[in-house]
């Protein structure tokens, strides 16, 4: 074991080369990656899926899959050469020096052992006695702000919420006081409000301990909130590295520039303009790239970029970029996208969809679960209604009730003033084609044994009632509309990228000229550059066809971009409903305010900014709190809120909120269409 003199560095990676052996050929996954993290500092690694982020982490902990191999370079953690460690030393390294927290806390915990046993195990491994380990486990859980550690310790992992599980995992990871803590997308599966809590916790713990943190995320907001420095990974190459504020505000690599431009932020809306995208695709795994890895997708690339690999150069103090044209990276040409004329929504017209006092009760083990309570809302033709709320708030139930997958327990759904059958099996073909859905996960949304052509042909036959030669022409039209090439039509879903699959799923929903398409988190499984392209496509289709969307998303930036109006759900109850800008800019319902302030903001700007932190989990819908259901978590709760259920009132024309803070306004029956 060689001891490197420089012990200030918790992690030091130089020229790391890593390959995966696929079908007998070594495919490079990391190409000469170098960076280091000083003790007590945090480093963020960003990049889209397939760029090598997680592989880098697995390489550092020497936990690669069997076909993975480090083929060059050096990794040292706390002065210890990691690559030369043998069996026992490697175990010691895992036990004492490095910790890793993965994305899914549910699978990181053993479902068969009590939480207390598992946390205590982290201490017995280090040599603590049983009783000592128990006490220390309790302390560790206190440290991650678990209010009642002894009760949590006696429970099993599945009895805890996702946020609680992740706290437990973090407590275990910190048990050994590691020199390096690796967090691989630790909050990606969590609600924004819970994410905010977990991130605050990690930031606070990091300040207390002297641990270096490697934070891996695709979310630039999270990285900017959590990290001192950031490295941008593309196709296994570190293309840019520097202090977070500098890289995010003065990016010097065209990829970083493109990535930042893709994200709908700062209140941009669909009628302000199109989103930028990054054209092209990530080079396939292990392909031989003579020049710059990004050259194929870069609008600044010249001949030299294709033939010669740029070296990483210091463009400013501590800011490195791997680009020949770093000084004009910010002038990366935008794509010329035709401006769209979005027809104005006419709210004086008849509404397309009217939900009247919609309720849904699930019966679960003898309990009544009120998944939706008295939801009334209207969607006009050509309009997008955004639907937000934490998980368990009833977003998906609302979508499923609209589609008739589950029947409403009370209330009605009207389509163009006609009452719809509650269950889709009883709806006419015209009603079925009028309401279609784009699912969240494009992998499971398409039959993997059917070609794209077959999927579209069948939808055309069933929804549009066309067959034969006409169907073939319509398939071509449909494919062209969603920008899917002739070649893609012959392929099966497994051969397509996530973005292409989602395009096919959108084409399928549009096969029968739908009136309302329900988009259930359609971009949350996609990378940001692909997300931008899909959002552009949805807006384009809306402009062409005048379709309405019910757009469900947890990403408030995305919802704000695409929505005309926004509905906020909490425990199955509508809390706020109004024009997107009004809902975002306030005055809000306290719950909306909490959702908004959960959006991660950069570390540098977070000081002094008022944050509404929601504590605790969403209460059980089986036994919701009395009065206003939000009062148990509401920072503004008054005595009245604990007893009296607030009604949805129009606080401003077209803007409704259900909160006692807004009392005094006039209650207006919601189902009546408001003036535009």
């Amino acid at each position, binding site marked *: 074991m060689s001891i490197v003199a420089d012990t200030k560095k918790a992690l030091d990676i130089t020229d790391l080369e890593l390959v995966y052996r696929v079908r007998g050929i070594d495919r490079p996954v990391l190409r000469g990656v170098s960076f280091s993290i000083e003790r007590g500092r945090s480093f963020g690694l960003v990049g889209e899926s397939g760029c090598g982020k997680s592989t880098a982490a697995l390489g550092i902990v020497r936990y690669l899959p069997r076909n993975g191999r480090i083929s060059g370079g050096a990794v040292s953690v706390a002065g210890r050469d990691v690559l030369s460690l043998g069996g026992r030393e490697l175990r010691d390294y895992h036990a004492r020096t490095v910790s890793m927290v993965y994305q899914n806390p549910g699978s990181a915990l053993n479902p068969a052992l009590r939480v207390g046993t598992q946390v205590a195990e982290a201490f017995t491994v280090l040599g603590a006695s049983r009783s000592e380990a128990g006490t220390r486990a309790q302390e560790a859980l206190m440290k991650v702000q678990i209010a009642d550690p002894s009760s949590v310790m006696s429970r099993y992992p599945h009895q805890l919420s996702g946020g609680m599980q992740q706290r437990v995992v973090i407590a275990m990871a910190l048990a050994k006081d590691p020199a390096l803590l690796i967090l691989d997308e630790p909050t990606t599966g969590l609600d924004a409000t819970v994410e905010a809590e977990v991130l605050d916790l990690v930031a606070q713990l990091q300040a207390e301990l002297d641990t270096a943190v490697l934070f891996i995320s695709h979310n630039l907001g999270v990285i900017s909130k959590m990290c001192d420095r950031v490295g941008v990974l593309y196709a296994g190459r570190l293309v840019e590295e520097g202090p977070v504020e500098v890289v995010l505000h003065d990016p010097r690599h065209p990829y970083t520039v493109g990535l930042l431009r893709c994200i709908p932020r700062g209140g941009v809306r669909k009628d302000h303009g199109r989103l930028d995208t990054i054209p092209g695709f990530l080079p*396939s795994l292990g392909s031989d790239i003579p020049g710059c890895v990004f050259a194929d997708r870069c609008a600044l690339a010249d001949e030299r970029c294709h033939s010669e690999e740029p070296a990483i150069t210091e463009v400013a103090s501590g800011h490195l970029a791997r680009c020949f044209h770093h000084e004009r990276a910010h002038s990366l040409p935008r794509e010329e996208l*035709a401006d769209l004329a979005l027809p104005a929504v006419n709210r004086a017209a008849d509404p397309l969809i009217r939900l009247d006092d919609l309720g849904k009760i699930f019966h679960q083990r003898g309990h009544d679960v009120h998944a939706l309570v008295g939801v009334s809302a209207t969607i006009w033709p050509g309009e997008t209604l955004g639907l937000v709320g934490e998980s368990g708030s009833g977003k998906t139930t609302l979508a499923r009730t609209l589609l008739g997958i589950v029947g409403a327990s009370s209330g009605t759904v009207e389509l163009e003033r006609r009452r719809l059958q509650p269950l889709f099996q009883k709806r006419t*073909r015209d009603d079925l084609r009028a309401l*279609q859905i784009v699912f969240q996960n494009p992998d*499971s949304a398409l039959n993997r044994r059917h070609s794209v052509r077959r999927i579209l042909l069948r939808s055309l036959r*069933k929804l549009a009632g066309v067959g034969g030669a006409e169907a073939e022409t319509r398939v071509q039209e449909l494919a062209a509309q969603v920008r899917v090439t002739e*070649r893609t039509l012959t392929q099966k879903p497994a051969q397509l990228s996530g973005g292409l699959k989602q395009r096919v799923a959108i084409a399928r929903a549009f096969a029968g000229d739908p009136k309302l398409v329900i988009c259930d988190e359609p971009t949350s499984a996609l990378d940001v550059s692909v997300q931008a*392209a899909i959002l552009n496509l949805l807006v384009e289709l809306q402009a062409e066809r005048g379709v309405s969307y019910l757009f469900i998303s947890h990403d408030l930036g995305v919802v704000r971009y695409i929505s005309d109006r926004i509905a906020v759900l909490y425990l199955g109850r509508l809390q706020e409903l109004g024009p997107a800008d009004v809902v975002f800019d306030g005055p809000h319902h306290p719950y909306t305010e909490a959702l908004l302030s959960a959006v991660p903001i950069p570390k540098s700007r977070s000081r002094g900014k008022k944050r509404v932190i929601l504590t605790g989990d969403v209460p059980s819908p089986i036994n919701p709190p009395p009065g206003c259901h939000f009062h148990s978590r509401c920072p503004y709760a008054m005595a009245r809120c604990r007893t009296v259920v607030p009604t949805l009132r129009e606080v401003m024309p077209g803007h409704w909120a259900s909160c006692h803070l807004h009392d005094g306004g006039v209650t207006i029956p919601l189902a009546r269409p408001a003036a535009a």
Partner: protein
Amino acid sequence: MSAVASPTPSPAPVRSEARAARSERLRLLLRSPTVLIGATVIGFWLFCAIFPGLVAPYNPIFDNQFSTSEPPNWSHPFGTDTNGRDIFSRVLAGSRNILLIAPAATLLGTLLGTILGLLTGYLRGVVDDVASRLIDAVLSLPLIVTAILIVTAVGNSSRWVVVLIIGLIFTPIVSRTVRAAVLAEAELDYVQAARLRGERAPYTMYSEILPNVMSPVVVEFTVRLGYAIFAVASLTFIGFGVAPPSPDWAAQINQYWTLIDPYWWMTLFPALAIASLVVAVNLVADSVREVYER
């Protein structure tokens, strides 16, 4: 929107990638030595079943009064039986029956089991409850005993009755496996999408779900085939399915096992033949399962 003017990467890599993925299973199977050994043995017995005359040195049903009960020797490597028939030739010719009945029975069982599994797994509800309890009941019966009971009750023990019986006994076993796969598959969004465009249950089961549960079906077929060979041999051993003097391994064992001391060769070689076929099928089945369930 020029952003996605070229949504597909350059054609060549995609195409070859896809082909590679498809042939991956076959490649993995052919690369495995166990599959090669198993397939060779099965191939050998198939060849013998189809062209018995080409490999057997003697007529398997020719009684030779001058060479009865000879132990293995140069002219009769496996010896001769009490009728003076060459056991080597009889073993080579004896695969026919088993190689006809066992795959046919397995095919029938897999077919019916897949249909039942699709119905119970997709329709759920009462259909599933009733069928599943019936299946539980059938599964609790010992295979061979049930088969004997049915054969006796039917009073006819022709080949096709044996095929039918083994097929019916396999049906619930296969349907269980398929049902589990269908349950998982029916949860996926593409099935929901099919229902939301107004597809009827038969289409959804046959065109949407079935192609996606073929892996367990294939695995189940190969595994069941091993059991079927054993079941056919057992039934023939106790005298169903084939009538002497046509050569058949199990029938030979049945005929001579009481004479095992001193005429051990009359029983041993047909027994080894059965064993070789069962082992060979299981070798292939194991690898198929490994490759398909990865």
